[in-house]
């Protein structure tokens, strides 16, 4: 009757955090323990990509270079994306964490968003404020 082992017993790595704003991913998987090879323990991999040439304000290329990068696990592990929950036959969208309204300071660009800035442009002695795209590929209308 015991039809077998769970299919995913082999190294299935799961994503806990995928934060595009601060460029952090945290994944976890079960690995054999070093002390006791028969036992499996949970290993967590944290991958942080620090953009060393980023500005303090990523939307303003004239702001100074950022020298301080702060990564807080509690903030990264907050699940603010709504998920679908099934209650009594109907599907609802629910947010899993509180305090999701606080604005996040981003260290790097989100590929799917368009970032623009205005800068003073001198043309024929006149200074105009022109809007320019910081991430041109993301700023197409289609």
């Amino acid at each position, binding site marked *: *009757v*015991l*039809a*077998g*082992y*769970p*299919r*995913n*017993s*082999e190294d*299935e*790595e*799961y*994503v*806990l955090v*995928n934060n595009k704003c601060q460029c952090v*991913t945290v*994944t*976890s998987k*079960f690995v054999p323990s070093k002390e006791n090879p028969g*036992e*499996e*323990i*949970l*290993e*967590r*991999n*944290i*991958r*942080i*990509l*620090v953009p060393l040439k980023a500005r303090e304000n990523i939307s303003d290329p004239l702001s100074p270079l950022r020298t301080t*990068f*702060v*990564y*807080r*696990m*509690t903030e990264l*592990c907050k699940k603010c*994306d709504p998920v679908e929950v*099934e209650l*009594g*036959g*109907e*599907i609802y969208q629910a947010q899993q964490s509180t305090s999701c309204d606080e604005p996040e300071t981003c260290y790097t660009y989100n*590929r*799917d968003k368009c970032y623009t800035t205005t800068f003073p442009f001198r043309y024929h002695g006149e200074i105009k404020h022109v809007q320019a795209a910081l991430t*041109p*590929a*993301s700023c*197409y209308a*289609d």
Partner: protein
Amino acid sequence: MTLLAFVFLLAFLPAESASSRYLPKAAISSHVFGPRQVYGLLKGSVTVKCFYPPTSVNRHDRKYWCKESATGCTTIVSTNGFTAPGYQGRVSITDYPLAKNFQINMTGLTEADEGTYQCGVGINGRGLSHKVSLDVSEGPHVPEGAELFYVKLHSTLTVSCSFGPDYADIRKYLCKMEKSGCRNVVNSYHQFGEDYVGRVLPSFVGTSGSFSIVITQMGWEDSGLYVCGAGTYGESGESKELDVHVYEETKVPQGKPTIFGVKGSSVTFECRYEPLRRSSVKYWCKWRENGCAKIIDNSGFVSPLYEGRVAMYNNPLNNTYTIILNQLKNTDSGYYWCMTEEEKEQQSSTELKIIDGQPGLEGRKEVEAQVGSRVDLTCSYPCKYYSYQKYWCKWNNTGCILMPSSDQRQPGTDVTCDTDNKTVILSFDSVAKTDQGWYWCGVKRNGLFGETMAVHLEVTGGSGASRSLDLLDIAEPPSHADTPSHVEPPSHVEGGFIPKEKSYSDAGVRSAAASESSDPSHGPSKLVLILSPIGAVLLVLVAAFAVFKYRQMKRSDLVSVGSYRTNISMSDFESVKEYSASNNACVQESQETQMGGDEFVATAAPPESAAETKKAKRSSKEDADLAYSAFLLTSSGIAQGGPGGDSAAPDGPPSNWEGQI
């Protein structure tokens, strides 16, 4: 037995809870996909096709082809117009954004060209790329690479393999390469891999040794190498490799993979068809191991088992078909497929799970009425449907026709909504035999169909009779002289007086029979089972008595124009539908089988449940760990966690965490 079942359940629990809460790593790895190995001939040429998710930014971004070296990946050619010196005229790159891929063509291959390359999108080294290994050999034969498939999450994959007519009778299979070997997906003996039951539809029919397989609801775990072949994998026969990659375009899923239906209520399925071809036949079927059993199609076919239960609506505006299935039972659980005759890519499947609950729309499901009488079909709705559109419609094979408020055909029929009582009533002033059938009460919002409730209206011939058990109510004044009698006169009556008389006599018997089914809410078949034999016995007695009385009257030679004799004929028993209703109930009981496996699959149980396995324990501790580890990280100083780069878990903090368990 239950213990074993419980252990079986536990074995699946950890995997289930983990996979439903978190995405696998495949979801966030690079979605640029291409061949793993490319083979070229000396002085020959090779074309590499690389796929990417067709988001706006990807379509407009730079595409590149670079060669890996010690210092990174140096660009050879890119869509910005750059070609590296030494490759001028030899290499070209072309982007096909509508086809979701770009292609690199390298000609004049030399041995120096062997090596590892990357095809990618954006900026070199940022991770949105795919490694390709180029092999240059003298030849003359070059091995064939795997066939590439790039499928969207939750969509459908169609693979077809052919090996020639020699392999027409040999066992065929499709399996997925895992670390432990090649796991079966489906084979020509109709054996399905456990993860693929319900979402795989093979078609092995064909004399040319070719077959095709359709897999729906492609998930992250479905990415990988597959092998389709004839024979046995690794032992005999021929095989072909398939490389499948699942990508996600936007966060919005294509279609819900699982729909929950409340028992007794209804569900709505949506079938999407990209460019809708009006000419093709579209149908909806239930998955079975030996095929897909057709339930309804857009040409008017409805499976007899589903009469009155299912309807199909076409929405040409957004290229979808809507299917409504009501009167849900436990046996309705399973996988349902939306199919087209051509265009295998348009096929999709949904799993239906039946749960217990209270249906929203309530009312009498079986209504019986006499011809010519006034009938009200009521349907009560709860407050949640207060702002919705409510409607009544008459069901037939091609759909459910809305009953408009003023129907010239039936004077006096109207649909009213009594706002105080939250009921919708469909009234018939004088119901006719043609009104018999299924009627649906439903709600609709913004053009989307919601819940429905089905009512069966039974119209019996005869004058308006009282519903009492008064069997001897023979002297019945006729109210409608024009009601046709569908009962043939019994054979033992000579010189048939007037068929009219027979119809009036029918009324008496009918009222008796009708009263039995006057309370359909006492539905349970047990009650009907007990009542029907009793009713049959009573009717036989009444028939005998009435025939006896009639014969007496006949002999006394009464000529009456105004007097009415009821006569009971044997044909009454044939046309009484109550028996067929109860028979259906009997059949229903014996056919009800539990779908194996559904009951064991737990809906995402919280890992905090009392699971015995160590793994479950660990993953439940994970949340506690996270809070503690956050504490540790911040307290041990930023310096440790600063310029990390691509570091795996450092040895410091994790051992701290472990020590605390």
